[in-house]
């Protein structure tokens, strides 16, 4: 995830809200991705309603007699090895996978905003310590670190997995926040706020942090997608989520062993995962382009 962070850093000021809308309004990619992401958000909020569309809405209502059968009436995606409806599994899996992505990103954001702002605004020893700390985390492959930590945990629910993923993803975000904060720290409008005698907290919240919001939002969007992929890969390796959780990663992990005979078990969750991650990454890329005129 290092490259992502580096590519987002720039020395351009943020664009205004109106300029942002003007740049984004005419891009079909923006609307397409937003619609997909909005739909996924709805699915995650109310999976029960979506799952019920074809009649059988309960992913835990399984019948071994229909094990691995292909698409049938009422079961558009077919059944998995345990005879569970794949469609409702994918719908409920959306909630888990998206929550892991969002939760991880939210945890990263909190840590990164606090540490990045303090380091970027006040500098000094806090800054050096943070720089070394991010070096440590960015200095080795994400996957290996996650394997070591997750492998030593026995109980891995969505919250645990999210926290471990966040442990390894916050540094790139913190670095980005720090860079953005440093860019505006000595800007004239910040100096004038300081000259007016405003408190540090008010200067930071009102004047400094808004400048960091654009790039941070772009990176967050990409991060949600990257985390969803990472979760599925870790789950496939056997150190990610465990049943009774239902996630795309778990569905894919159990489906890949039977891919040869029953490809439908792998195809449908893969399509959902890929479309989700693709829209998140594409939207993040687009936002980064728009919010950062230099890379256009």
């Amino acid at each position: 995830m290092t490259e992502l962070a580096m590519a987002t850093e720039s020395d351009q000021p943020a664009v205004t809200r109106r300029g942002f809308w003007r740049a984004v309004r005419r891009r079909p990619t923006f609307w397409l991705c937003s619609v997909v992401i909005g739909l996924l958000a709805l699915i995650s909020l109310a999976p029960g309603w979506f799952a019920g569309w074809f009649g059988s809405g309960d992913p835990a209502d399984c019948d071994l007699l229909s094990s691995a059968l292909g698409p049938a009436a009422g079961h558009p995606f077919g059944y998995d090895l345990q005879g569970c409806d794949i469609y409702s599994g994918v719908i409920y899996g959306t909630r888990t996978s998206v929550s892991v992505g969002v939760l991880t990103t939210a945890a990263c954001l909190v840590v990164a905003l606090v540490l990045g702002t303090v380091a970027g605004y006040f500098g000094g020893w806090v800054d050096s310590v943070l720089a070394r700390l991010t070096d440590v985390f960015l200095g080795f492959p994400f996957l290996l670190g996650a394997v070591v930590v997750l492998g030593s945990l026995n109980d891995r629910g969505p919250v645990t997995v999210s926290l471990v993923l966040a442990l390894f993803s916050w540094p790139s975000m913190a670095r980005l926040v720090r860079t953005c904060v440093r860019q505006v720290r000595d800007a004239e409008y910040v100096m004038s706020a300081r000259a007016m005698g405003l408190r540090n907290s008010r200067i930071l919240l009102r004047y400094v942090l808004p400048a960091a919001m654009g790039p941070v939002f772009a990176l967050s969007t990409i991060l949600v997608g990257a985390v969803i992929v990472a979760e599925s890969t870790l789950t496939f390796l056997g150190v990610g989520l465990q049943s009774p959780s239902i996630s795309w990663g778990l569905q894919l992990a159990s489906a890949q062993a039977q891919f040869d005979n029953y490809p439908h078990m792998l195809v449908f969750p893969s399509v959902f995962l890929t479309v989700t991650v693709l829209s998140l990454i594409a939207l993040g890329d687009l936002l980064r382009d728009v919010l950062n005129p230099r890379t256009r």
Partner: protein
Amino acid sequence: MLRPVLQRVGELLIVFFGVTFLIYAMVFALKGDPIATLAGDRPLPASVVATLRARYHLDDPLWQQYVRYLNGLLHFDLGTDFTGRSVAARMASRWPTTIVLALTAWALEVFFGCALGLIAGLTHGRVPDRLILLGTVLVSSVPIFVVAVTAQLGLGVRLGWFPIAGTREGWPAAFILPAAVIAIFGLAAVSRLMRGSVIDSLESDYVRTLWAKGLSARRVVGVHVLRNAGIPVLTFLAVDLGYLLGGAIVVEGIFNMPGIGGLLFQAIRNHEGPTVVGVSTALILIFLVLSALVDIINSALDPRMRRA
């Protein structure tokens, strides 16, 4: 010359202590009472507990235990697995497969990544550029194991173009498909970096001068643009080789290759905790040393990279 080297070595040491402490704290210190785990359901006699605690130094302060662990690492002691074999010895015979696989993947990534990036950069904003961007983003949104399983089934089992698993067919036959799967995932970053630096070079003053001088497009792009655009890409690729060494876990596991990644894959699957930790630690340390070496070589080659 000496200063940047020392600085980089200093950074390496900080990261080394940070990473090993992180692993130590996560894996060994927070795991609860190891003796109780060993004993299972029935309580052990107090004398046995005392002997075991003394033998494994469990009553020493945490920092002494960490120092002991570090000392072992520096002597290539990565621990022993459940059957008493040393993890380092089990890794030893598996290096060749992983190195060959990583180098093959790397070669594919360098070639296709640079070619795609160059095409995209030269057709900046037009259809080929858009298509390449779409393709690389699409590829990076599919989990690597899905691609690996699909390639194995489609090109290996159904079409029979490549061996399905194992390394018995030798290089290149048995290595091309797994290497291609690994390379696909690095492709996006390489081609994007190459595209960016080709665009930057094309817009720079010296290229305008070359055009004005009347040089042919082939010479401008082939000699001047490519050479300058290649520098950041090469730096990235060198570090990427380290990632490939570790990133082969999934692919070696799926294609059943007897490499380090395959060992780690099986260890995770069989819940062999000590092997997982030992192998990952070794890979992380190798990665740290490799990336420090790359930086030092870079600063020797290109004076602009030296940080004063």
